[in-house]
């Protein structure tokens, strides 16, 4: 089956600035893909190109089998797009705005009312349908934007920072809505908030400075990029002996000990990549007759990975710069 989005070597240059540099990725039907990156990474630029708002400088972009440059109108018929900051006509009423959008999106006349009713229900807009958009809270406006994106039953939803500027309750509501929508639509959403992507998406594309750094499921990213976080151990026993014996266990890369506020010793064990020395730790403690109070592995979050990937990228760049300087 042909992928929903197929991007090959996408490059976008603005006057003097390269916003995207040879980006390639695909999104299959039914996926919820998160676009993750710091501000200015090229997320919005990619989405604008996908939605047909601006063209690329080079590369090939296909949505639902149509070329974004050659069949722009056809591509737009298959996309529900919510731009960054969710711009809406503030002077219109919710129902009025959505009705206008059904018309310009080419929803057939006899289906308009049904579509409108459905998205109003889906996005929980019934109580505000006659309110002026400019007077709504940001959470409701965001839902109007989502409702608009859904109006023409698009195959693909492109949501640029769908939860930005919302309060925690609203964020949860919008995330839940996106999750529900994922059952019926392919979704590409961008975010610079990690838990969001971690919670809603089944694949993550990390992008920085116009290049893709990683693309995988959140779990796999955690597994492959950062084998394990620190293991925290609390043991009752002589501190120096505990440090020495735990440090000698196979698979342990390093040990840091600090005294607790009682006779327990707190040890932070750093495992070697890809190993899990917890069993060894338990056995060592048991063999020495010490008391074990805690044995916990920090769960690495996507956040750690994100920071790590960014740092590796920065270091690599620093090295490149250094070597260039060296050549001179």
């Amino acid at each position, binding site marked *: 089956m042909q992928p929903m989005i197929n991007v090959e070597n996408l490059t976008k240059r*603005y*006057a003097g600035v390269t916003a995207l540099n040879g980006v390639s990725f695909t999104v299959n039907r039914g996926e919820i893909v998160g676009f993750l990156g710091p501000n200015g990474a090229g997320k919005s630029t990619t989405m*604008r190109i996908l*939605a*047909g*708002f*601006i*063209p690329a400088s080079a590369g090939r972009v296909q949505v639902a089998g149509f070329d974004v440059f050659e069949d722009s*109108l*056809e591509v*737009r*018929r298959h*996309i529900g*797009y919510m*731009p960054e*900051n969710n*711009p*809406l*006509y*503030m*002077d*219109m009423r919710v129902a*009025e705005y959505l009705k*206008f*959008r059904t*018309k*310009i*999106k*080419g929803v057939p006349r006899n289906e308009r009312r049904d579509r409108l009713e459905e998205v109003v229900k889906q996005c929980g807009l019934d109580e505000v349908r006659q309110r002026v958009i400019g007077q709504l809270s940001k959470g409701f406006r965001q839902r109007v934007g989502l409702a*608009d994106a859904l109006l023409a039953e698009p195959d693909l939803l492109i949501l640029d920072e769908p939860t930005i500027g919302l309060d925690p309750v609203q964020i949860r509501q919008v995330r839940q809505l996106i999750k529900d929508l994922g059952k019926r639509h392919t979704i590409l959403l961008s975010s610079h908030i990690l838990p969001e992507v971690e919670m809603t998406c089944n694949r993550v594309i990390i992008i920085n400075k116009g290049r893709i750094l990683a693309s995988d499921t959140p779990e796999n990213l955690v597994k492959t990029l950062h084998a394990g976080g620190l293991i925290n151990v609390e043991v009752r026993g002589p501190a120096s002996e505990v440090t020495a014996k735990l440090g000698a266990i196979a698979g342990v890369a390093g040990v840091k000990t600090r005294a607790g506020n009682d006779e327990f010793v707190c040890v932070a064990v750093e495992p070697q990549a890809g190993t899990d020395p917890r069993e060894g730790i338990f056995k060592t403690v048991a063999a020495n007759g010490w008391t074990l109070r805690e044995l916990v592995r920090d769960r690495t979050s996507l956040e750690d990975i994100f920071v790590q990937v960014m740092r590796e990228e920065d270091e690599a760049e620093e090295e490149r710069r250094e070597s260039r300087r060296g050549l001179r």
Partner: protein
Amino acid sequence: MRNVLALLRRELNAYFASVLGYIVIMFFLVVMGVIFGTIVLFLSRGPTQVTAMEVMFSMAWLPALFLIPAITMRLLAEEKRAGTIEMLMTAPVTDFQVVFAKYLGAVVLYALMWGLTGLYVVILRHFAGESSALDLGPIASGYVGVLVIGQFLIAIGLLTSSLTKNQVAAALMSFAFLFLFLIVLSMWMPHFFPSGDLNKALQFFSYRSHMEDFARGILDIRPVVYYLSATAWALFTTTRIVESRKWR
């Protein structure tokens, strides 16, 4: 076409959902009411060669100078400032459909304002009776002139609105154009060049002589073609400017 109609409805809605539409109409009626009253006052002093409506049409430039920038300045500038142009241009509509609908919206509002002055004809008829001063032919062609010239000025206002995100800047640009076109080109220049080829050339572009012809009941096809093709040029250029986001 369906797209244009939907977009046009949204444009008209925007005029009347905000106070802008009402303020503009009120301003127009105040200015035209004063002009009309003054004309009637002067003409009632004795027999004249001109009719009240003829003089009124010849004054059409005065409200246009302020109203055209006011009704066109937000058309594209505001969409760009608020970012709503992104919603508009990622819907399956072409750039030209958007530009054309915005032009039509302003033309409809403009026509509506002038339509209200039809009341003056009724008033004149009531007091002056069925006299020759109320020949409906020249009145009809006067309205045609006001519409044909006004729609061109609106297209220019739309063009300036596409150049900036700032409504005030757009208004000042179209005001500057209207000022040059309506006053300098049509009223001053013929004064400086009273005869010769340059005068003939100026006559051809002179809004004033066109409007006078229309108000006298002369429905010449040449100025109509001139204004409509100038409008086509302005709308085409505006579309290219809107598209320019794609090649900048």
